[in-house]
């Protein structure tokens, strides 16, 4: 089966610019996650969707980050305006359900560099 797809794979922008990332989860997976992985650290959950509703966005910096999952399939994560500290790899993951017994499948990530 096809895995989680993300694009672009790499992005370089200047601070104060905006950027958007796209994620296509595995077909049939109701739960979608966005993680931020800063160099040298483990991934940190930014937002979790169940279908097209938000389950957890407690660690999403809402003054500059936004995410949506229209129609409960694809999702986009936007940063506006970007700061230097947003440089990181942004990982998308999906799972069949929200229960911890369902494995999360991760995409290859988008590496963002803010200069």
């Amino acid at each position, binding site marked *: 089966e096809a895995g989680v797809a993300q694009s672009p794979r790499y992005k370089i922008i200047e601070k104060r610019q905006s950027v958007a990332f796209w994620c296509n989860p595995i077909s049939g997976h109701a*739960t979608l996650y966005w993680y931020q992985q800063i160099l040298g650290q483990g991934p940190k*959950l930014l937002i*979790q969707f169940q279908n097209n509703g938000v389950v957890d966005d407690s660690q999403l910096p809402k003054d500059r980050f936004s995410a949506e999952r229209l129609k409960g399939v694809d999702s986009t994560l936007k940063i506006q305006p970007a700061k230097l500290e947003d440089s990181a790899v942004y990982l998308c*993951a999906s799972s069949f359900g929200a*229960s*911890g017994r369902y494995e*999360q499948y*991760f*995409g*290859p990530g988008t590496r963002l560099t803010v200069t």
Partner: protein
Amino acid sequence: AQSVTQLDSHVSVSEGTPVLLRCNYSSSYSPSLFWYVQHPNKGLQLLLKYTSAATLVKGINGFEAEFKKSETSFHLTKPSAHMSDAAEYFCVVSDLGTASKLTFGTGTRLQVTL
């Protein structure tokens, strides 16, 4: 609150020798514990998971981990390292009380030398 501590940021072993990557966890509820591997420029892949069944968990590629509640540990082992095992390894905890929210450790980079 849930957290994990990976005790070594970098481990180097020779090919054919045993691997031990150490992880301690903290959890308010009965935890689920996972080990993920991340190869360069590739997505995270689940190696194995513990979800309150057998305390010795076997995963892919010959890896296994043992859940020790008394020591709050979930160390990852492999009897014989292979060059292809070189990667970043993450210990991860999920509380039943927080559904599927995963909390990652800071990672251990495994280097395998000839």
